[in-house]
């Protein structure tokens, strides 16, 4: 079963239900279905064929959702790029996955495609936004030919680019089978219904959004797109939750923390419509979970899984969790996956022991774009402890990947970009603070006799990295502390967080 079948089936059962809602615009199932077909024909005329990739570089809007569905209907895979992703990073994605087309809008689309040569087609979504978008003679609204190219379950549905330790982003390839294993699990676990309203908080580049969109589509429910700029206005985010009568909310814990701390979430009674609150992407400080549990009777679910495995474990918060002194467990296997915990000596961890979490099963990615296929179990790099009842507690990373407000950041990629600044001789980046307060600290050794400006470093980063990967604090130092074997001593850096501190 393909991922796009979910929308096609719901459009025939619930044509008049809202499929997409929120301030960016509404669209009913019948219209979304028809527009996806019309745009699929247009993309086909641009040369998009089964097995191709199409980058979608657009603001969150019903039209962006139309574009995703159009690409899938052609048997191609979509590659979302965030609205705040800089041109250079989208260009790097394009060079890597070689899409047939880029769907976007405005100047930056033209700038991007000009830099890439003739073999990538630019499709301006604004030209497809009218009442009869991009229609061709013979495609009148009542008789647009449905597009539903047969796909193999192992065909690619989408590619999500994530931070790469070597300095360039890497594309996680997700098949229809993997996406459906996750979406079908989520829809069943949440008992998704046609009158549900799923908030979509995460950007489309982030795998959390897959649940919002497709669990909604599987049930004929609405997905309410949260405008990305509400991240800067927690009180408006809280308003959104009430006004849109959201029944299922899914976001990183940091977003909920800011809504509680600065948006007055707890000052108003919980909305009656809210029946499930899901969070994932980073540990939720237990005090925040406790506050939410005291505020709403909605189910609280902690979901876990790197982009490479989608969600592979989950835990539903029970009253007994609230007296813990650490965050809630990540729980047990989900989506038909099998999880094992491997001790450093290679043995399987027993209750009370720690090890690396290893995942096998239907949600595991096909591989990274351009790399060897993923075969067998996927080693997450996440360290966990096995609890007495067999469920799991998250402990931290084995490597230098960190989470900044739920976003995954490879410190090596941030360092590679800063190291490319002409006035930077050497640099190390660490994360300080936890949860919503996590910040990236860059320790910069300037080129001799030069003092790079903080703003110039930020600008240099912003031209190459998404906003959450731009270092928050800069510390200028004469040299970086090293361990006896010559590696950067990150523990020593961690104790040095005052700006302009000398080591």
């Amino acid at each position, binding site marked *: 079963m393909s991922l796009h079948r979910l929308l096609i089936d719901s459009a025939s059962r619930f044509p008049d239900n809202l499929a997409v809602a929120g301030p960016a615009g509404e669209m009913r199932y019948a219209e979304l279905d028809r527009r996806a077909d019309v745009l699929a024909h247009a993309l086909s005329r641009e040369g998009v064929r089964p097995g191709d990739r199409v980058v979608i570089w657009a603001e969150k809007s019903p039209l962006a959702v139309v574009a995703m569905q159009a690409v899938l209907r052609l048997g191609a895979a979509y590659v979302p790029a965030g609205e705040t992703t800089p041109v250079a990073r989208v260009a790097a994605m394009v060079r890597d996955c070689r899409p047939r087309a880029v769907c976007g809008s405005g100047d930056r689309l033209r700038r991007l495609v000009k830099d890439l040569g003739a073999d990538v087609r630019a499709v301006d979504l604004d030209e497809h936004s009218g009442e009869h978008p991009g229609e061709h003679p013979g495609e009148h609204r009542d008789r647009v030919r449905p597009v539903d190219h047969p796909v193999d379950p192992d065909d690619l549905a989408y590619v999500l680019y994530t931070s790469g330790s070597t300095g360039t982003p890497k594309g996680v390839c997700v098949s229809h089978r993997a996406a459906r294993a996750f979406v079908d699990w989520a829809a069943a676990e949440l008992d998704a219904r046609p009158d549900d309203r799923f908030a979509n908080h995460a950007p489309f580049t982030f795998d959390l959004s897959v649940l919002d969109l497709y669990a909604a589509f599987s049930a004929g429910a609405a997905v309410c797109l949260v405008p990305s700029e509400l991240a800067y206005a927690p009180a408006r985010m809280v308003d959104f939750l009430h006004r849109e009568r959201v029944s299922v909310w899914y976001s990183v814990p940091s977003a909920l923390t800011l809504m509680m701390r600065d948006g007055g979430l707890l000052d108003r009674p919980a909305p009656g419509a809210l029946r499930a609150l899901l969070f994932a992407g980073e540990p939720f400080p237990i005090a925040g979970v406790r506050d939410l549990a005291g505020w709403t009777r909605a189910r609280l679910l902690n979901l876990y899984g790197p982009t490479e495995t989608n969600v592979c474990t989950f835990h539903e918060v029970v009253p007994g969790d609230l007296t813990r002194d650490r965050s809630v467990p990540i729980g047990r296997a989900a989506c038909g996956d099998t999880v094992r915990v491997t001790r450093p000596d290679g043995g399987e961890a027993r209750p009370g022991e720690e090890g690396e979490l290893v995942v096998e099963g239907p949600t595991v990615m096909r591989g990274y774009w351009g790399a060897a296929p993923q075969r067998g179990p996927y080693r997450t790099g996440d360290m966990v402890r096995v609890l007495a009842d067999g469920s799991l507690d998250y402990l931290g990373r084995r490597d230098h990947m960190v989470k900044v407000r739920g976003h995954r950041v490879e410190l090596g990629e941030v360092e590679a970009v800063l190291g490319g600044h002409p006035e930077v001789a050497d640099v190390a980046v660490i994360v300080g603070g936890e949860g919503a307060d996590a910040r990236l600290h860059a320790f910069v050794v300037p080129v001799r006799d030069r*003092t790079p400006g903080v703003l110039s470093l930020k600008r240099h980063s912003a031209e190459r990295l998404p*906003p959450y990967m731009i270092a928050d604090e800069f510390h200028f130092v004469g040299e970086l502390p090293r361990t006896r074997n010559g590696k950067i001593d990150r523990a020593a850096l961690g104790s040095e967080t005052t700006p302009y501190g000398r080591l």
Partner: protein
Amino acid sequence: MTTTDLSEREISDRLIAFIRERFLSGDPQGELDEDTPLLEWGILNSLNTAILVSHIRDEMGIDVAFEMMDPRAFKSVRGIASALRLL
């Protein structure tokens, strides 16, 4: 309904001083100005914006209904200062 007597100029100057000190390690080169893209360059993110808003409220004494403000105003110091005058 603004409750401040500060001019837009004074608001800008104080915002710049605070952003430099708090988010730009002092900005020793003095690069920040009214039109520096705060969101695009990652100077303001969700956390920093919340810190800035409490500073405007508590330290600058400007008590405005921030939930009425268009979040896109945070794109620059000029944008914030003029939005504050309009509220």
